[in-house]
C-alpha cells in the first residue's frame, strides 16, 4: 500500500469513528438536551409537582382567558397529541398569541395545572408578510412540521 | 417594544465586523506582498 493510500484509509477510519461517536453521543443526549417538555413528554415523564421545569408548545386557539385583574391569564399549550393547562401572572411577550409557540418556565401544581413564572415566545419557521398572513396561514401550503400541523 | 434599535444594532454590528475583516485582511496582504517584492529585488 502506498503511503498516500495508507493516510487516506486512516483519515476515512478516523472520520467514520468521529461521526459514529457523535451520533451515539447525540442520541444519548436526546432527552437531556431537550430544552423543554412538550405536553406529550411531560405526561409520560412523571415529573413531581413543585419541581422547576420548562414546558413548550403551541398556544391553543381560543384558549387564552384573561383574568379580571389584568395580569393573570390561563391558556392551553398543545402539541400534536396532548394539551396542558397553564396559569401565568405577568406581562406576556409581544409575540404571545394564539396559534403561536411558547416556552414557559415554571412547575406543576398538584392539580396538574402548570404554573408559569416566565413566558418566552417561540417563533415557528414560517416567515409570512403581515398582509398575506390571513390567506397564507390558513392555506399553509409550505408550512412544514411545526408542533401543531 | 420599538424594533428600530434592534434592527440598527444588528446591521451595525455586522457592518463593523465586516469592515474590520476586510481592512485588516487587505492591509496584511498589501504589507506582506510589498515586503516580499522588495526583498526579491534586493541582490
Amino acid at each position, binding site marked *: 500500500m502506498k503511503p498516500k493510500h495508507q493516510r487516506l484509509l486512516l483519515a476515512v477510519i478516523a472520520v467514520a469513528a468521529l461521526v459514529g461517536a457523535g451520533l451515539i453521543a447525540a442520541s444519548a443526549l436526546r432527552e437531556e438536551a431537550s430544552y423543554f417538555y412538550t405536553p406529550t413528554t411531560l405526561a409520560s415523564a412523571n415529573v413531581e409537582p413543585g419541581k422547576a421545569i420548562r414546558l413548550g408548545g403551541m398556544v391553543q386557539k381560543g384558549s387564552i382567558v384573561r383574568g379580571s385583574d389584568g395580569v393573570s391569564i390561563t391558556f392551553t399549550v398543545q402539541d400534536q397529541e396532548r394539551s396542558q393547562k397553564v396559569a401565568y401572572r405577568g406581562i406576556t411577550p409581544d409575540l404571545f398569541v394564539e396559534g403561536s409557540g411558547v416556552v414557559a418556565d415554571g412547575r406543576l401544581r398538584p392539580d396538574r395545572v402548570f404554573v408559569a413564572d416566565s413566558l418566552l415566545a417561540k417563533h415557528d*419557521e414560517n416567515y409570512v408578510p403581515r398582509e398575506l398572513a390571513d390567506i397564507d396561514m390558513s392555506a399553509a401550503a409550505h408550512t412544514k412540521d411545526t408542533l401543531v400541523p | 417594544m420599538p424594533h428600530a434599535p434592534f434592527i440598527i444594532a444588528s446591521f451595525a454590528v455586522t457592518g463593523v465586523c465586516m469592515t474590520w475583516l476586510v481592512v485588516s485582511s487587505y492591509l496584511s496582504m498589501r504589507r506582506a506582498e510589498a515586503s516580499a517584492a522588495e526583498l526579491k529585488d534586493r541582490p
Partner: protein
Amino acid sequence: MHRFANPARFLRIARPLTPALFLLGLILTLAACIWGLFFTPTERLMGDTVKIIFVHVPAAWLGMGGWTGIAIASIVQLVWRHPLAGVSARAIAVPGATFAAICLITGSIWGRPTWGTWWVWDGRLTSMLVLFFLYLGYIALSNASSDKGDTSRVAAVFGIIGAINIPIINRSVIWWESQHQKASITLGGSSIDSAYLVPLFVAVVGFSLLFGALVLMRMRAALAEMRIEARMRRMAEG
C-alpha cells in the same frame, strides 16, 4: 489535485480573482441589505425585526461553511500533502470565527424583541457558541507555531475533529426541543415567503463572495510571508 499546487500558478489566478470577488460581493451585499431594510414587508408576528434575517442567516451559514472548509482542507493537507491546503484552512479561520460571532450577536439582538430574552441554553444556541470557541481554539493552535508558513498537523487534526459539531448544529433543532425554530430552508423547500427569500438569497451570495475574497487575501498574505521567510533563511545561510 496538484494542478494548483504551484503557488505561482495559484497567485496568477488569485490576483485578478480577489478584487473581482470583493467588488461583486460588496455590491450584492449592500444591495441585499438595502433591499432587506427598506423594501421588505412587515412579518405577521415578528414585525420589522424580521429584517435581521438578512445578516443573521448568511453569517450562520458562512460560520458553519467556514469550518466545513477547514475540515476538508485539513483532510486534503493530511492525506494528499497538498501545499496550499493548510494555507487555505488557516486563511478561513478568522473570517469564519467572525461570521460565527456575527451570527451569535445578531441572534441575541433578535431574540430580545421576538422571544423575550437575549440568550437561552438550548441545543442550537449552545452548539453555535461551541463552534465559535472551536474557531478560537483553532486560531490559537495554528498560530502557536512560530513559522508563518508552517501548516501544523495538530491544527489540521483539530479541524477535522471539530467538524463533528457542524451536523450537530444543523440537527440540534430536530433532535432536541429548542427555543430556536426549526430550519426554514431545507433541501425539500422553504417556508419563507419569497418577499424575504429573494433578498436573503442575494445576501447569502454577496456575503459568500466577500468570504471568498477575504480568504484569498489572507492566503496571499500567508504565501508572501512564506516567501519572505524562505528568503531570509537563504540570506542568513549565505
